[in-house]
């Protein structure tokens, strides 16, 4: 058996090799770039790749670093960043024609924190335009393919980030999760995907889609890698008034902790619309956990069935307002006209793809006079009911286990013309965003038709440690 390439190893393994002087930082980057060159033409996971910068940074680290005991948590580790998160002096396109030439004036706080922890930003990843989608097919830069089978979608909207982590074109990635956009592609590609508590990671430098729901999240090869990256980016930021101002605990993942947990299984999960094969995998995995955690009980989340309608009404309303800034005046695309209103309309018509237009239109409709209370106002009330369901459930349990998605990956092009069918795939992920709590998707220990099944573990606000510990226990089932 040949030994794995460096790019296929976990962060802690690579750091041990560095400490033992078996490898140099530049060896890691060389391995990752070689993998990108062999895979990304098929996958289209990256919009921009910073090959020269990355090599230069690694060579510099090799020269500078004398005392390897002083390694920072991500020293020399190549991390990819979703292309709706700003990286200074690089393109941030949001997968849209309207921002195809937009250069970020500054680093997002999460990116600055990655750099401060020693990470090397290796490139910017593909996404559904403005993170609006569940398949990474609506990008102006073409669709991303699933590395497991190139005929299938990688999920979305952070499909580029999930795909490059899966094929080892990065050792971890940032994504954004407004309604499941980190967890959904993590499930489809078979990697770990963490959506932190709303406000635990600064949104400064994340291009706004739906501000009350948006969250920067992490995609990693393993639960431990995901925790290392999360530890790095979490924390209060005075540039984002919605960040939570409490100390951040450095989480060290420990699966043994689950023996003291109570795991909740919502009785509403095994409902119509869930692929029976996925239901069986979830059931088997839960049974597998019983030897390590005796307290597994049924809980109820009755509002889940209204999550899709509630989520989409709120996110579309917020999106219609947030995307008003793309008007061809200050930056991005401009379609010229002699009349200003016409310039706005032409620019936005040419610059936005169909899904973005659809969401702006529904959002504007739902906020317009005579319809506000009926749609947006009602959705805000149902959002509160969904949050109350979780508050109640977490009185009886520490974490909640569900599938991440109701269906397995589908083929490219298969659902693109049926937006409602695409939205329904977010049934299990949107509730955590509505409630502002944390959740992770982790591959189940069993595959169906070669595809992984995503298991979602949801925790209360600031419950990242307990969901990571539970995820680690699931990861260990087959080890």
């Amino acid at each position, binding site marked *: 058996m040949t030994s794995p390439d460096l790019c296929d190893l976990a962060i802690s393994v690579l750091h041990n090799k560095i400490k033992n002087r078996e490898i140099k930082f530049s060896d890691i980057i060389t391995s990752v770039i070689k993998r990108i060159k062999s895979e990304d033409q098929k996958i289209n996971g990256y919009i921009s790749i910073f090959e020269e910068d990355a090599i230069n940074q690694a060579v510099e680290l090799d020269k500078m670093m004398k005392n390897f005991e002083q390694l920072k948590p991500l020293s020399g580790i190549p991390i990819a960043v979703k292309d709706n998160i700003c990286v200074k002096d690089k393109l941030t396109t949001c997968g849209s024609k309207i921002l195809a030439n937009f250069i970020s004036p500054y680093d997002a706080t999460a990116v600055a924190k990655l750099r401060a922890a020693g990470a090397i930003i290796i490139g910017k990843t593909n996404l559904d335009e403005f993170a609006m989608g569940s398949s990474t097919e609506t990008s102006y830069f073409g669709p991303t393919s699933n590395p497991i089978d190139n005929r299938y979608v990688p999920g979305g909207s952070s499909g580029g980030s999930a795909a490059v982590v899966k094929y080892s074109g990065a050792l971890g990635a940032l994504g954004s999760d407004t309604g499941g956009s980190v967890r959904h592609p993590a499930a489809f590609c078979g990697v770990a995907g963490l959506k932190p508590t709303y406000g635990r990671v600064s949104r400064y430098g994340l291009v706004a889609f739906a501000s009350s729901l948006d969250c920067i999240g992490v995609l990693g090869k393993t639960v431990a890698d995901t925790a290392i990256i999360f530890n790095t980016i979490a924390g209060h930021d005075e540039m984002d008034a919605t960040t939570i101002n409490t100390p951040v605990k450095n989480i060290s993942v420990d699966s043994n902790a689950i023996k003291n947990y109570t795991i909740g299984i919502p009785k509403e999960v095994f409902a119509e619309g869930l692929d029976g094969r996925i239901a069986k995998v979830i059931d088997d995995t839960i049974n597998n956990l019983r030897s390590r955690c005796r307290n597994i009980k049924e809980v109820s989340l009755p509002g889940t069935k209204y999550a899709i*309608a509630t989520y989409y009404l709120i996110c579309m309303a917020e999106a219609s307002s947030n995307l008003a800034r793309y008007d061809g005046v200050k930056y*991005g695309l401009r379609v010229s006209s002699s009349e200003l209103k016409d310039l706005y309309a032409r620019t936005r018509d040419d610059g936005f793809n169909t899904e973005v237009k659809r969401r702006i239109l529904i959002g504007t409709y739902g906020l317009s006079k005579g319809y506000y209370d009926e749609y947006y106002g009602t959705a805000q009330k149902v959002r509160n009911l969904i949050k109350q369901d979780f508050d109640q459930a977490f009185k009886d349990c520490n974490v909640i286990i569900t599938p991440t998605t109701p269906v397995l990956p589908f083929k490219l092009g298969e659902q693109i013309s049926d937006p409602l069918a695409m939205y329904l795939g977010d049934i299990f992920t949107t509730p955590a965003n509505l409630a*502002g709590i944390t959740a992770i998707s982790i591959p189940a220990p069993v595959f169906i038709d070669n595809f992984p099944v995503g298991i979602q573990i949801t925790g209360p606000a600031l419950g990242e440690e307990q969901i990571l510990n539970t995820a680690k226990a699931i990861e260990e089932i087959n080890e």
Partner: protein
Amino acid sequence: MLTQTDLEKVAKLAKLGLTLEESSRLTNEIEKIISYFQQIKHLDLHDVTPMTHAVSIILPLRYDEIRPTKCLVEYLSYKKFNYISVPAVLE
């Protein structure tokens, strides 16, 4: 029931120029999506307060001190003499 005329009015409010083909197709698609959303209108919500945000926000204050900032004018795509350039809005 959403008509094509309704949609064109909304598009105008959203400053979206749509072709006839687009507005016809989007009317049908959006009508179907809005019909799906109707399910939450029948819930009894009279005692429920709207939830606007996941965290309670207390507007933070800081000292009013000057900090170095980047001049964003250099990042503007359409400028003349360091001003944003747009079509004339006054005759």
